[in-house]
């Protein structure tokens, strides 16, 4: 009863057979593709821990069915750094202490990359507003906002 889908994951073409139509994209990524960097923090689409890029947009992968990703380009946190070289956003999170337990971090980074894209002078307010869909329980957000500002500049 499954369907076949193909997608590009972190630059690699993958075809999967027998995908249950109800399977969530996040479960496909974590369980079928073994990319566990994308976390699950809730079951009501509130926390953003599961954020990935799909066809150039930041999406909550717990809110997308795997079959909807058929034919698309998906990038997860594992697809960010190249050869251990951190991206500007990852580096800024490290430099600014933008993470504590690290559980929200992959989702924050994926959301942050899209948030600051093309907006090097993004303001604190814009970042805070843009992060409404990503919950962090540890940091109080302050250093996350700082990191995103730094990364916005660095990426420009």
């Amino acid at each position, binding site marked *: 009863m499954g369907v076949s889908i193909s997608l590009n994951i972190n630059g690699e073409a993958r075809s999967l057979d027998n995908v249950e139509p109800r399977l969530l994209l996040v479960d496909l990524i*974590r369980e079928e593709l073994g990319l566990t960097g994308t976390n699950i923090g809730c079951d009501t689409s*509130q926390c953003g821990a599961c954020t990935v890029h799909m066809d150039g947009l930041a999406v909550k992968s717990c809110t997308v069915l795997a079959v909807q990703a058929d034919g698309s380009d998906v990038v997860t*946190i594992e697809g960010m750094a190249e050869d251990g070289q951190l991206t500007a956003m990852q580096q800024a999170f490290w430099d600014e202490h933008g993470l504590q337990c*690290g559980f929200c971090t992959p989702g924050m980074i994926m959301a942050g990359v899209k948030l600051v894209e093309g907006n090097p002078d993004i303001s604190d307010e814009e970042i805070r507003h843009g992060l409404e869909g990503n919950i962090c329980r540890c*940091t109080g957000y302050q250093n996350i906002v700082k990191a995103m500002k730094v990364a916005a500049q660095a990426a420009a």
Partner: protein
Amino acid sequence: MAKFVGKSFKRVEDPRFLQGQGKYVSNLQRPGMAYVAIARSPHAHADIKGIDASAALELDGVVAVFTGQDLIDGGVGQLPCGWVVPDCKIPERWPVVPDRARHVGDAVAVVVADNPYVAEDALELIEVDYEPLPVSMGARATTEYRAQQLHAEIPNNTAYSWALGDEDGMRRAFAEAAHVVELDLINQRLIPNAMEPRACMAEWDDTMEEMTVWTTSQNPHPIRLLLSGFTLGIPENKLRVISPDVGGGFGSKIFHYPEEIIVPWVARAINRPAKWVATRSESFMTDSQGRDHVTNVRMAMDATGTITGLHVQTWADQGAYLSTFAPLIPTALSITLFSGLYKIPGIWGEMKGTLTNTVPVDAYRGAGRPEASYLLERIVEKGAQKMGMDPIAFRRHNLIPADEFPYQTPVAFQYDSGNYQGLFDKLEEISGYGDLREEQKAKRAEGKLWGVGVSGCIEASGPAPSAVAGSLGSAVGFWESGTVRVHPTGKVTALTGSHAHGQGHETTFAQILADELNIPLEDIEVVHGDTGRVPFGMGTYGSRSAAVGGSALVRSATRVREKMTKIAAHQMESRPEDVYFDDETGNIRVQGATDEGMSFFEVALAAYTAHDLPPDIEPGLEETAFFDPSNFTFPNSAHIAVVSIDRETGEVTLEKYFGVDDVGNVINPLIVDGQLVGGVAQGVGQALWEHGIYGEDGQLLTGSMMDYAMPRADRFPQIETDRIETPSPTNPLGVKGAGEMGTIAGTVTVANAVVDALAPLGVDHVEMPFTAERIWQTIQAHS
């Protein structure tokens, strides 16, 4: 000379998290693994008349279904309570209830399947015949004589009563008082919501009869102890508990949970690895919750505004069962802090721990200390109002002077060190306090509701002297272990019994050891969270890791250094007292000698080759120390919040926030500031948004992140923090806890600001959280 301690180093643990390589339990897999899902009671109180699993068992992919009785027959024990105050009555608590559910979410059956989706499907097919019972709700109401009884063996739903202080002194103070102020207040139920939901995985080795359990715990060794001695019955030497990367805890991952028993029990029963991962909805109805105190507080003052007495009566809702440390929180971690930063001669605190048909309540960030600070700093605020004094001036008038430390309070604790006037000096300076009040005047003149809230808070952190803990009801000791293993190549593995789930110990502990051993930071690896590697440990909570765990490592490093000194002296044909660790070269050298001495590596290697050791020195280079602190440490703080309130909507906006904290010496300022800011955000969350709400029928109405308001990025201004440092004399590092102060202070500071904003309307108290609706109602009632 400290090259590392006191400096901001980026965290060494970060690269794995930044690249999605965190080893959280939910990410782990074992070959042939089965998935566990748990059927939970939808009723807050119900008898279970029968369970029909036949349809579930027919589903393709379902491996087994187990009931509570199956587990009991299979040898599981009851979940014990690890803190027993005098005359405490402990209710029965089974990991899966055999006959009666007592809160929404109580486990009633266990499904095992080949795939998590199938396990969820099977849950739907399990027929449980429930006979609902009346419920008992409300911390105080549950003790009334008509209330439904939760446990036959616990009359009046009251598990314990506890009191501390000087009752006669308190009575004298009130008899002689010139002024008395009083408040009834509620410290509402909170739901911790660490971002990583709890998870557990287990693997049974049938041949070796060994069990490995991976669990999202803040303290794997105590979990192993409880599993072995009470709940699962596998010998401690055949049981390994691993808590790898844990995605936040905030107290909620201290406790021994039913799933930690269920999953390994299943793995052995089916002889296959098994894993359970909580959904967020399950976290809401099964993670131990926080606070939920109902309090009456009265404060006595003389004619000059000197506080002379304090009387507190609290009913603490403990939920349906006593969770692992539940009785500790309202008693020895709360009443003991009722003196705050002040000299108060007559303090008397009374506490009742009560049972309701709700999820159990236990430690949540701050644990007892935010409750103490909340009631004290609210009543102090009211005292200032009554005396017509500025709130900072009133507090300054009552502070314990800096030259009176150590200071013995009338409620058991002896404060280690502090400079409370200095805290407020710095706070006034960084916040521009005078200007804030001018700004407020101007806003009020424009008809705006604008509040400036002040607090001064104390915390007892770094639990605890084991003998003291024992005398107060603890079933365990609270020392910590630390092992320093120098390998023959000079690289170091440090094993600590404390646990990091966001606190950054892999960095801060390496900083400590780099200074102690005079080696580069990157030569040290810090290992925690694995009973198979770390000798023993008590884990992390109560802001204890640096003060207790760090001190254990200092002690073992000191022994390593002494041994290396002896070996080096022997090899360089000199006296140990002439040998020193040279900061500049990193070598171990002889005073006055012109040669380079021996490198750290050469001495380490010599310890292992053992070709030429002094006669009384054993080969090898590894030391383990256990540190039992002589006292708690007492971090303290002075904070200010500025809020505005929209008269039309009642919406509260946090405009500014300033905090000055004394957490003793600081190992890594970057990390400490991160803890303080994150802590403040959590405290502000309680004041403004968070509330775990139950209906009268015991249904959890805030059962998801749609209903429970988590703090979000767009609701905060920049939080400005600063510090003063009075080293703690009770540990070699001079540190005090830094993990909870922000949360303790954040809540009451904002509460005082909101009340201050509404003061012109004649408001002297509002219950939290300060939602727009509640504030709007308050404004309507007062205009």
